[in-house]
């Protein structure tokens, strides 16, 4: 007797995910595109597009968010690079404990963390609304630092110690070894870290909100349009942001190692 067995082909197994993807990713994207290029009467128009680039307010917000996220990313990199290097090079047993110290804050709810940070900052600065930009950068750095440390840490861990020995054997002093071997081989980690900090920090307006920074960034700008039921201009801004992110990802992918996704998968 032949036993009946349920068998699925590969494409059949893909179906649930495809449905999910279509419903929750592709359909919303299409809706955004539709709203971005229509007006209130449902007619095709480029008005929203021209609105975006002719409005000094939106362009200003774009530049401000860009400046804020670039500053955050650079500060994260400056702090994370030596930290990750020391972590990866320290003795085997302590290493994990030290790493946990940097990862553990991520287990605490992020609004809670920012609230705590707010208290600390107001203690130090007195009136917290006096330095909105500085406070936002501090908040963002605090929030995103682990995302920069982890990919760097994995890329330092992967670094073959023999290569450093080989370089010094061939006549390189410690500085040259760092410049010619350690640094170039950690580029994938740097790129990975940058993409993980730069892009989210452009839209994370919650940090600004909580730290009383009244200036809009991209996230809050979209939010303000949507809350005023202006779906059309809000969608256009989202679309522009999406294109920017897409371009940045394309550029950074050129630099990163093909098999180096380890840093991202840890998170």
């Amino acid at each position, binding site marked *: 007797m032949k036993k009946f067995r349920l068998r699925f082909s590969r494409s059949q197994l893909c179906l649930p995910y495809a449905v999910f993807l279509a419903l929750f990713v592709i359909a919303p994207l299409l809706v955004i595109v539709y709203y971005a290029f229509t007006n209130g009467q449902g007619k095709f128009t480029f008005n929203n597009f021209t609105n975006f680039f002719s409005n000094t307010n939106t362009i200003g917000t774009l530049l401000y968010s860009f400046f804020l996220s670039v500053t955050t990313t650079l500060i994260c990199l400056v702090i994370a690079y030596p930290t990750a290097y020391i972590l990866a090079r320290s003795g085997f047993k302590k290493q994990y404990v030290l790493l946990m110290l940097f990862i553990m804050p991520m287990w605490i709810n992020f609004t809670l963390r920012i609230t705590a940070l707010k208290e600390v900052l107001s203690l130090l600065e007195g009136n917290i609304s006096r330095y909105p930009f500085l406070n936002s950068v501090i908040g963002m750095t605090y929030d995103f630092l682990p995302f920069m440390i982890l990919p760097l840490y994995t890329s330092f861990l992967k670094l*073959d110690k*023999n*290569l450093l*020995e*080989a*370089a*010094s*054997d*061939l*006549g*390189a*002093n410690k500085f*040259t070894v760092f410049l*010619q*071997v350690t640094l*170039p*081989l950690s580029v994938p980690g740097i790129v990975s870290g940058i993409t993980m900090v730069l892009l989210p920090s452009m839209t994370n307006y919650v940090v600004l909100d909580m730290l009383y920074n009244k200036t809009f960034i991209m996230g809050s700008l979209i939010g303000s349009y949507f809350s005023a039921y202006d779906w059309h201009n809000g969608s256009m801004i989202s679309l522009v942001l999406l294109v920017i992110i897409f371009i940045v990802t394309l550029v950074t992918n050129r630099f990163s190692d093909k098999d180096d996704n380890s840093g991202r998968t840890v998170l």
Partner: protein
Amino acid sequence: MNENTNIIELINVRKEFDDETVAVDNFNLEVKKGEFVTFLGPSGCGKTTTLRMIAGFEIPTSGKILLNGEDISKLPPNRRPVNTVFQKYALFPHMNVYDNIAFGLRLKRIETTVTGKDGKEKVKKVRLSKSDIDKKVKKALEIVDLEGFEKRSVSTLSGGQQQRIAIARAIVNQPEILLLDEPLGALDLKMRKEMQIELKNMHKKLGITFIYVTHDQEEALTMSDKVVVINDGEIQQIGTPTEIYNEPVNTFVADFIGESNIFNGTVVDKLKVKFCGATFDCLDDFEINDMVDVVVRPEDIKICAPADGQLKGKVISTVFKGVHYEITVEVGKFEIVIQSTSCAEVGAVIGMRVEPDGIHLMRKVYTVNKYDGVITKNNTVEFGDGEFECDVTTLYPDSHLDEEGYLITAGGEKIDLTDVEVEVEIDTHDIEMSDDKSAGGVVGNIISMIYKGDHYRYIVRTEENEEDYVLSCPDLWNTGDLVSLIIPKDKIKLKLKVAEGNK
């Protein structure tokens, strides 16, 4: 200055790691300019550590390393005129072949005299020019037979090609000494043979001193001018391949280099030794009645008619090995391995002869185990990381124990033996091994085994303080096995350390 042709000298070098393991100890070696020296030993014997000390990656705990008579033991690697070929190549993955080879050249500064504007001659350190680097890289690629590979990415190369690039990268700097750390370990057999010959040719052509690390005895014998056999961090023997093979100084060297039959023997008369139940003439002069280890190479045993042989035995196996047959013969309770071009039928009785120059005698290294021990309050003895039952009454003649465990001497004196220090002696054949970890007084790993014709000699090392037990046993165990050691009560010989043992 006195004449000094030694390019490198290691004097009493010792290396202890942070966890207090001694990797290298008492290491004395002189290497002449242009020599091909090989460090040979089993893995973990300290040969790579020694190489790393010469390269500068490790600093010796004590002792000196002299290069051309100058002490370099504390110099960092980048300031030593020494280059290394690493076991796993260690090529820079982010550079192409050209940049890899040019790495050292680009960092090099050469002293040249230049005439300044004021007409004065000055010594200046100048970088190599681009065309100079080009020429040298090209030459190096020619030497390793990979012309035209400059632009190739390292990851597209095969293992053998990567190895050649690693060699090119090292020799392009014209080091005084080239260090090679098992460079052929990752290659397949055929490739390895080819590279052996090429390396040897390169050595002749370049005239650079080579120091080569390997655990492959055949590689060491074919390539080197001088072989340094290392075990447990110490040099066992230094000599030419022929000396090492024909005149091994101890059973370790004999067993490690080539195949050998090792027997326990006794010197019965002037230049006569008895082993395997027969007496043989030999060339090594020992005292009469000395216990010795006898080493006979399988190819030095000649097969003859049973009546003509010094030994007679039954063939238990014959294996064809290409050039020769490997024949195992049972002589009484001994097993003897013979390599011969003539075949012998399994089951046949054959005679065997050994010429005097085929018999190598060496002083026995281990005949008895000796430890410092302490008597516990239960009248057991603690030594060598373990605790054993023993007969404390042997410490004093005619003594006995009372009910409370005190020792009553022949004169009626009462002695508390707790914490008394004693010398402990156990014969190698009085120790038994067991799988059952709780069966014996101490547990350790087998770190060495040597077949001696009718039994194996094992060395068991404990984990805690690395105490060694040497024992003979006819059964086959494996190196690395964790065993428990059983020593019968009456086989532990105790001796008081001081004349008066009591406190």
